[in-house]
């Protein structure tokens, strides 16, 4: 019994010492496995001041940088905005705006990125008519970029 216990203990210790390494004595092959944690960096635009009367202003870039994703995963960046700049003194006075993909001028809602270097160049668009009817004052809005690491 002591011998049996010693054998079991020895096998346990061996299995703990070399994790995930199984040696099949029968065919004498060795399987080596490892886990690499996914890493990535997402860059989102910095705060920006839109020049007066500019109908299209560069807003910067959403990009996936230095990414090492799992093969079935992706990074999704979703933009949350009410598309309205509010007058800081009188919130009833607003200027509508929209954020666009500069590549095709489509409205940017979200972007899916798989590999490093993928990006979306964005612009802030304000229609001339909206500029023309805007009251004097300082306007502001905060947009939120939701960044998700998720399944494809």
């Amino acid at each position, binding site marked *: 019994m002591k011998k049996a216990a010693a054998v079991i203990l020895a096998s346990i210790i061996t299995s703990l010492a070399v994790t995930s390494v199984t040696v099949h004595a029968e065919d004498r092959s060795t399987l080596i496995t490892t886990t690499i944690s996914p890493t990535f960096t997402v860059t989102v635009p910095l705060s920006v001041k839109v020049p007066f009367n500019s109908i299209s202003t560069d807003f910067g870039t959403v990009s996936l940088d230095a990414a090492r994703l799992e093969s079935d995963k992706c990074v999704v960046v979703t933009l949350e905005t009410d598309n309205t700049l509010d007058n800081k003194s009188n919130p009833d006075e607003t200027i509508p705006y929209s954020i666009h993909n500069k590549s095709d001028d489509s409205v940017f809602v979200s972007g899916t990125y798989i590999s490093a270097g993928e990006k979306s160049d964005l612009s*802030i668009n304000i229609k001339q008519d909206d500029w023309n*009817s805007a009251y004097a004052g300082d306007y502001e809005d905060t947009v939120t970029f939701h*960044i998700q690491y998720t399944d494809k």
Partner: protein
Amino acid sequence: MKKIVCFLFSLCLLSFSVPAVYAEEQSSYSYDDATKISVTVPEYHSVTGELPDGVVLYMDGNAVNATNVKRLSSHTFTIGNTDGNNRKIDKVYVNGEDVTEEIMGEGYNVPSVYRDLFFTVTLGDEILPGNLEFSSEIGKNAPTVKLTPEDIQAIEDAVLTDEDEESVKNGSQINIMLSVTDVGNSITDREKSLINAFISGKFTPGEYLNIEILKTTDNVETYVTQLSNEIKLTLTIPEYLRAENRTFAMVRLHNGETTLLEDLDNSADTITFSSDKFSVYVIVYADQNSNNPTDTTNTGDTTPIALLVLFLTVSATTLCLFGKKKEN
């Protein structure tokens, strides 16, 4: 011993399940990042322009050079020429937009100024005909001048040279101004003595005047002292000079030469004279029953001496005749 074996097996199983849990945690996660967008809309907008000399921009009827207007305020702009420009305005642009038709018509109306406005004006090659204007200026205490359209035309004809008329056709602006000024306090003693010597014993000086004709051609001023023709001028005689049985005339002192100019009208309130020289004038007068026309002092003694002498002579003669009859 069995307990030990079971514990070690459990430990072994546990050690294999840790990586699986880790993987599950890394499979999906998210975070947020906020970014601020800001804008400043200005309170005022500038109104400026690139205007040729002599072209004036008017905003709501007032000439403006460079100004600021409140955002979203309403304004009407027009444009015009002054003396400094004799070429026709060709095009007017506001921020590059052609507004010639509106601004040269009823005005370019901006119901809500939402941007800086920059006016650009270009001139055509066409020369605009010039303009001839006449005006009169009567100084303090000076008599007024009665001018009919015919009188003004005669003055213009007498003042303008052939060159002047040609330059008006080529766009020059000519202004003719007749001015009458009381110079009683500024006339020199020499001028006064010359006039008094001229009228001595015949007239009394009333009001000393400087009657001038100023011709301004494209902002260049010239006093015209010698006309090509005589013109007639009618002055209103000042109230304080008017009196019964008083006649008036004008005396002209020009280049040291005095000339009497008779009153050409029959009105007691005006004096009309003709002249082609303009410098110092004096309204002079004579009282018809006065023995000494230069002494106009009213002493208050109005007794008719001659009549009295005649009356006394007649009375004495009558008394003498009656006395002789009684003696007979």
